[in-house]
């Protein structure tokens, strides 16, 4: 078993350990869950340090036959794109466990169930990025919905059951369309005497235009629902509103990235011609997402749905970068996925602490927090600045790259997209002003500032945002080779920039 497999499966060890622990000993359960997730994180660091960008294909490749009659393999392997997303996952899980120390209590089920679900989900999240077999990817892509469904429905608040169902139905519907496309591409590979689900082998198929278009749509719609791209986004605000902050972080920070990751890994490389056909339309949808998400975020009254709508706007930027298919665009989009993970995590963490202290998620209930809880207020402010892509924070780097990369191919879209930055400033600053500044609103007087555990939980997130903002090179160094290989597989080059640059 190589280290990649080990990192992927390690959290399951924790699930087994938790299964044998008594339900009542909640403190110990939390410690074990935290310990397992930290060890997973350290293991993934070891893996990252030893990682060398492969000349082609994937590193840490492993493959075992799984369902031999359909040539399905348990095949893992990572490139830069997958590596950064796996690191994002393994870093966020312990932060979620630590930051939401008490959110597992008061749910429908025991604390034990909560952490078992989280750890199962972690294995799926790592596995989905590591899978190089399309079938395996599909299976994990679908199976990971089940723990999230129970996390939202069992431990969320408000209309949690309905939100969980809506989330699951949307995702499964998209997944089924993708299933049809997965079967289609397998049949084509069988006809061309390859008969494989291996993503590299499949990218060498010659598929005629019409078929490519259909298969592309099958994959793309599933990913667009996941991502979520306008107009497939309607499940997200409800889910984010009902889920616990920790679940929301994993949902928006990691799970939704599977959508944008899948677009690069499968849509672009397997169906390059169809990508070129559909790209202009998807660019339009992305721009709409950017603007629409931002506008709706401005009008939100609920803190969690506000963060959800900002994410729709940000995902618009990511898909913009992907479907511009330029090297800056793709690298920017990939880097954006990581940064969005951290900045959303920061917002949900601090927002979650504010909500749990105030026992309300309505923005109008907050006010003047700067006076009584300065640390929490400052951290919320910094998280907000990261969401609006302030220079010096990592989200600025990627937003800039995405717009630059988009401009060379779709200048109009890039210009309209820039409006999104302005709107982002608006929704974040209005939010900051309403919640943190001004006179202290009644009901907020007894709020306490962050305790040590919470400070430890948020510290790595803020550190990542700042360090990657000033020194993004390590991340870009890993991402660039996979961008180059995607561009090569698509057989495209960057458009010539007009003179005057």
């Amino acid at each position, binding site marked *: 078993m190589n280290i990649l497999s080990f990192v992927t499966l390690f959290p399951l060890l924790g699930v087994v350990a938790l299964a044998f622990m008594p339900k009542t000993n909640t403190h110990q359960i939390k410690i074990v869950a935290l310990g397992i997730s930290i060890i997973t994180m350290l293991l993934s660091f070891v893996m990252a340090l030893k990682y060398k960008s492969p000349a082609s294909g994937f590193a840490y490749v492993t493959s075992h036959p799984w369902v031999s009659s359909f040539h399905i393999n348990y095949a893992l392997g990572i490139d830069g794109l997958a590596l950064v997303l796996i690191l994002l996952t393994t870093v966020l899980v312990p932060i979620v466990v630590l930051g939401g120390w008490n959110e597992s209590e008061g749910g429908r089920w025991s604390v034990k169930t909560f952490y078992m679900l989280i750890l199962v989900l972690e294995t799926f999240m790592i596995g989905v990025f590591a899978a190089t077999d399309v079938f395996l990817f599909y299976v994990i892509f679908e*199976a990971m919905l089940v723990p999230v469904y129970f996390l939202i429905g069992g431990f969320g608040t408000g209309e949690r059951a309905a939100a969980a169902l809506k989330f699951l139905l949307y995702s499964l519907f998209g997944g089924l369309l993708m299933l049809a496309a997965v*079967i289609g591409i397998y049949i084509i590979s069988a006809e061309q005497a390859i008969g494989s689900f291996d993503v590299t082998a499949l990218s060498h198929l010659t598929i005629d235009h019409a078929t490519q278009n259909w298969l592309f749509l099958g994959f793309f719609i599933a990913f667009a629902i996941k991502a979520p791209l306008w107009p497939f986004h309607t499940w997200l605000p409800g889910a984010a509103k009902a889920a616990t902050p920790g679940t929301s972080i994993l949902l928006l920070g990691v799970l939704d990235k599977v959508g944008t990751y899948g677009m690069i890994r499968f849509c672009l490389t397997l169906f390059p011609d169809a990508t070129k056909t559909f790209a202009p339309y998807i660019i339009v949808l992305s721009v709409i997402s950017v603007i629409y998400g931002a506008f709706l975020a401005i009008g939100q009254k609920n803190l969690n749905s506000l963060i959800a709508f900002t994410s729709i706007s940000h995902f618009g930027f990511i898909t913009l970068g992907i479907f511009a298919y330029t090297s800056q665009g793709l690298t920017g989009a990939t880097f954006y996925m990581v940064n969005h993970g951290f900045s959303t995590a920061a917002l949900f963490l601090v927002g979650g602490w504010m909500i749990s202290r105030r026992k309300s998620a309505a923005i109008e209930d907050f006010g003047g927090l700067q006076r009584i809880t300065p640390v929490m207020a400052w951290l919320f402010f910094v998280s907000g600045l990261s969401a609006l892509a302030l220079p010096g924070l990592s989200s600025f780097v990627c937003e800039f790259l995405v717009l630059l990369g988009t401009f060379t191919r779709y200048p109009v879209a890039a210009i309209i997209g820039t409006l999104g930055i302005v709107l982002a400033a608006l929704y974040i600053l209005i939010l900051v002003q309403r919640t943190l500044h001004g006179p202290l609103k009644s009901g907020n007087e007894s709020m306490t500032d962050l305790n040590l555990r919470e400070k430890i939980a948020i510290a790595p997130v803020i550190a990542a945002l700042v360090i990657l903002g000033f020194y993004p090179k390590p991340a870009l160094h890993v991402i660039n080779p996979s961008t180059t290989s995607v561009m090569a597989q698509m057989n495209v080059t960057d458009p010539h920039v007009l003179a005057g640059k």
Partner: protein
Amino acid sequence: MFTMPTLNYAQLAPILIVLGGALLGVLVEAFFGSKRRGPIQITLSLGTLVISFAWLLRIRNDISATAAMGSVATDGFGIFLQGTILVLAFLAVLLIADNDHFAPAVSALPGSEEEAAAISSGSRTTEVFPLTLFAVAGMMLFPIASDFITLFVALEVLSLPLYIMTGLSRRRRLMSQEAALKYFLLGAYSSAFFLFGIAFLYGYSGTLSLTDVGTANIFSAGSPVFLYIGMVFLTIGLLFKVGAVPFHSWTPDVYQGAPTPITGFMAACTKIAAFGALLRIFYGAFFLMQYSWKPFLTTIAIITMVLGSIAAMTQRDIKRTLAYSSITHAGFLLAGVVALNKAGLAASMFYLVAYGFATVGAFGIVTLVRDSSGEVTDLSKWAGLAKKSPLVSVAMALFLLSFGGVPMTSGFISKFSIFTAAYQSGNIAIVVVGVLSSAIALFFYLRVVLTLFFQEAPTDGVSVVIPSIMTRIAIGICAVMTLLLGVYPSLLLNLVDTMSTLVH
């Protein structure tokens, strides 16, 4: 002139053993007192099924088309389905063994003094065991029958006991008896269609053998109109048995009215037997005429998938929901029939096994959820069950997710392989419709899961009875198989690959 038939008893033995067990069961009914019959019948039935299965294992490689003068074909496909039926019947008998499900005196009028006396005397209906064995024998013959008369005899042998068993329910007896009557009348009607079709096919080809009818098409000088009429009527008879739209209307009523273990048995085993016959006929006898029936059967498959899943959404009763779900599954299985390639045959075999285990398991759980007046099938009463009985709820969720085709369950691999086979045959329409109706179907499976896990339990809630050890074993095996075939499907996929052979 009458020639003495030569029978290969070794190859017919699995069926003969079951029939022998059934006859012994009848004798037990006659010679033992009502108190002692129960344990004897249970042991006898289970033993018979085990012996028959053991024999089947012995002859699994003896492929022959002439075991009974060309009337049965023991090939990989047939033996595989026979084995599947035996295993599922074994599990179903474990559920049937719980005596709370059957009326103590079937002949007594509901609510009469006679019935009250029977209840207080503690007598129980043990006839159900030999009846089950008779039905199993018919089911085992149905998928290997290779002439039309044998096919018809098998159909009747499997159907007649089921009509009776449907009417045996201990509670809601009027509903049960109504279901039995409805099943019988519609079943008799469909048998008539079936027989009518056979007559036309005989008239057209002059033979009753499946193989000869298949080739008669090329040589016959007769008008193909008779062939078509024969095919249509025969197909209608079979479609009735598998519960395909528009011949499905009996399914919800019968599934709801029958005692729940019987419903589980019927839903799993009858479907396997009927699809076995359907596959043998369409992959064999009617193979050469495929261009005349494929559009027809494709249409049936599509409307079955769509209507089954839409109708299921409006149901409020778990047994009716599962009935409509079984209709939807019939549609998916028909997609395997029209695929008409080796992959389609293998996929259908896998599908039937996966579906069978999940079905027996799901109905097994329905038998456990009760209140003071017996089983509760109203879904609203199931709300919040997970709080009280987490294990049972998780198992139920597993079966439902498998029905819905969620990855890591056997149902997903079934759907995947069926759709792959259909795609391979170029029938992309059926794949797209299949995928979309899967999405609709998921809605109602998930709604049940949601009811179980996320709704508050009503005050007059139901409880899960402590299952008997036999019920526990049955549900446990079904759950393990559902998960195992989802996580490591190669176990069975490799087997169906080698067993998916048909002899003519």
